[in-house]
């Protein structure tokens, strides 16, 4: 029998039958298992949305915070304890809408967190408004005349910012999704995994079938170290490429730049204030 240390057993999952989120959940649990991670040493951080319910369905540590704010919370966690594996997970609205500024700056900061975005091209939990990734013409009760803005291209923006790991997956392909997630977690530094995901209830345009027909994998020959090439692939018209677009192995990882970790990786909570030093600091205010 397969070892499933991250399984929650028989719980009530609030997603709709047929939702792509189930496959992402399976892929994630499988990835975590294959990476042989310890549930006690993993934290899944999320915002609010259907995707953001994810951590409640994985047997591990959970930080389910505010809509759009998973990334800063994850950064705080990772920086306070670099021994933890930290995943920031949520929906397209969560990460690219409400949380857009954190997305931009997380790429620059390059903290060692894995950013998994369930991209169903819609705000599902709030019942079907357009998200930043909704396609042009997509109609909703708010976008009654259809979306007119070009969808947010997270892959291209991440490459433009020289992100250290940029990938796209499709929930329908559990196996490859799992592999990509594994690579992302294994990567040191900020890793974006944008996962195309079908929402059976609110996105009748970008369905499972649509994704099947409108995606393909980058060729093996694609060189993820070539930024311009990666950008070309990210912005090409037509079908959406899947796979690892770009890697920048040279970017310093945020935690490594933090003075507190220059000589030791001990988590902050295990450290003590050096009262002697504090006294020295205070005494320096006597003379200077």
């Amino acid at each position, binding site marked *: 029998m397969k070892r499933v240390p991250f399984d929650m057993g028989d719980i009530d999952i*609030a997603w709709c039958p047929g939702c792509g989120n189930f496959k992402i959940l399976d892929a994630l649990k499988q990835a975590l298992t294959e990476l042989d991670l310890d*549930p*006690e*040493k*993993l*934290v899944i*951080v999320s915002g*609010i949305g259907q995707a953001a*319910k994810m*951590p*409640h369905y994985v*047997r*591990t*540590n*959970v*930080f*389910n*915070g*505010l809509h759009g*704010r998973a*990334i*800063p*919370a*994850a*950064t*705080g*966690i*990772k*920086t*306070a*304890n670099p*021994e*933890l594996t930290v995943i920031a997970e949520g929906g397209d609205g969560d990460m690219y809408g409400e949380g857009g*500024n*954190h997305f*931009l*700056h997380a790429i620059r900061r390059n903290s060692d967190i894995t950013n998994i975005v369930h991209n169903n091209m819609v705000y599902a939990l709030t019942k079907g408004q357009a998200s930043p990734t909704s396609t042009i013409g997509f109609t909703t009760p708010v976008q009654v005349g259809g979306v007119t803005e070009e969808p947010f291209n997270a892959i291209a923006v991440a490459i433009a910012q020289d992100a250290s790991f940029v990938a796209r997956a499709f929930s329908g392909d559990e196996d490859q999704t799992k592999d990509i997630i594994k690579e992302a977690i294994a990567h040191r530094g900020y890793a974006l995994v944008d996962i195309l995901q079908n929402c059976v209830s609110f996105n009748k345009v970008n369905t499972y079938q649509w994704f099947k027909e409108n995606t393909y994998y980058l060729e093996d020959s694609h060189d993820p170290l070539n930024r311009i090439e990666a950008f070309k692939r990210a912005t090409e018209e037509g079908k959406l490429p899947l796979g690892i677009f770009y890697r920048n192995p040279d970017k310093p990882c945020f935690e490594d730049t*933090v*003075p*507190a970790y*220059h000589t030791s990786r001990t*988590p*902050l*909570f*295990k*450290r*003590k*204030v*050096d*009262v002697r*030093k*504090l*006294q020295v*600091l*205070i*005494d320096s*205010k*006597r*003379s*200077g």
Partner: protein
Amino acid sequence: MSTSSIQKRDDISIVLCGEAGQGIQTVEQILTRVLKLSGFNIIGTKEYMSRVRGGSNSTQIRVSSRNVSSAVDRIDILIPLDKKALQHVGKRISPDTVILGEKDEIVGENDNGDLTVIDVPFSQIASDIGGRVYSNTVATGVIAGLFKVDRADFLNYVTTFFSGEKETIIEKNREAAKKGYEIAQELIDSGAVDIDVKKDPGSARDILINGAEAVGIGAIAGGCNFISSYPMSPSTAVLVFLSRHAEEFDIVAEQAEDEISAINMALGAWYAGARAMVTTSGGGFALMEEAVGLAGMLESPVVIHLAQRPGPATGLPTRTEQGDLQLALYSGHGEFPRIIFAPGKLEDAVFLSSMAFNLADKCQIPVFILTDQYFMDSYYNMPSLPLSDTGIVKYVVKTDKRYKRYALTKNGISPRGVPGFGSGLVSVDSDEHDEEGHITEDLDLRVKMVDKRLAKLKEIEKDALPPELVGRGDYTTLIVGWGSTYHTIKEALGCLKRDDVSFLHFKQVFPLHRTTLSYLKKAKKVVAIEGNATAQFSHLINRQTGFNIQDKILKYSGLQFSVEEVVAQLEKLL
């Protein structure tokens, strides 16, 4: 020209006034240090415009033999560094004010003959030495000389101060300093000025810190090892202080992309076991409010330093006000407990900032430290810091397999575990949740969880700090104040010389200590003094105790109360 007033004084108020970028800060830094080192009590305060160059800013340094620590309107010695200076502090100049400056250049047309001016050609002297930039150092020398600071000590300090600069620059500054010192001796010798403030032998060894440093030192003493913030005057100084000492004290100091990120990082850090704070000001804090609610729901500790400035919106970014009390008190949607401190003394700030971390950790709530621009920028000397009263108490528990983050307990506090410490899992949730920290729609459990969160308020009330009574216990009039007005009101009280008037100062403004009402009821008349336009603390008192304070002295110009102002207003009321 009369110098009698200065001669009689045992405390002298020196005001430096000039444009931003003119180097007032250099004069101030050197002077306060050397004066303290030679045994004077020093109190420094400042007011300045929101610009990097130009405008009119002023710094007051009180040199005293007494233990006073507040700003006064009175100016004994004015050093105007530009033409606008006399206008800027105009209302505060009296015939007793000695103006040290270039008669033609600076005092010029402002003088109708009613000013007491001692003409010192700072620029000329400086130019002779090598450039007008040295005129500030000349001025520094004059003051050092007037206060009879030991000449060698003074010059040594100047050398140390400029030690980062090129050799010639150090030399020229020494020269300028010497020149100034000589001028002072001439003034003394000629009888034009004679200062005789008694020295306090202890002062030389005293600590000299400002409000920002006090908060920072307190934070370190309280175990703070994480600060994430976004720059905003006047709160940035705390971020700067902790950044400077980050390496030394294993502190993660991160400038976030915005305030929302800053506080969410801090909550993440606490979750993972760090002791985190944010420092911000009104507008930045407004952006953090959703996350304050998150702290309430997660039952996450968090320490928020909120340095107030006049609002609404951008308002007066470099000025002072006590206008964000209600904002802090009602911040975050939904209902959950919190603690709000408002230090009055610098020592309070050290103690309260350190306490804030322990109480946040113990009760798993947001704890606020409310200061303001005046407080951040004020400094004075004191023999020691109350570190012995502090000490780090950590409440994090090691988890086991059955660990439940939100276990229902009697006092509402559930033992707090952190991920990676023990064999349990730690789940925190911004939705209403069950004991394990998972989303629930069980509405009976909802009620229990609300009750649990609110139950902590009782616990917090037990720990509330009592207000401090200044004056006799058998008062008929009671002045009520909070936060940064402590020293000003206390000194004003001294000036009033009325045994029947006492002063009750609150350094914890929420929740109030249980003795509050009895203090208020004892008085025939209660007067609240607040640095805002709507008497926010009086409303809070009314809400918590039912006591309605009738008389209020309010100020909201952007400047701190002066001692004289409080005295005058009180005299009108009493």
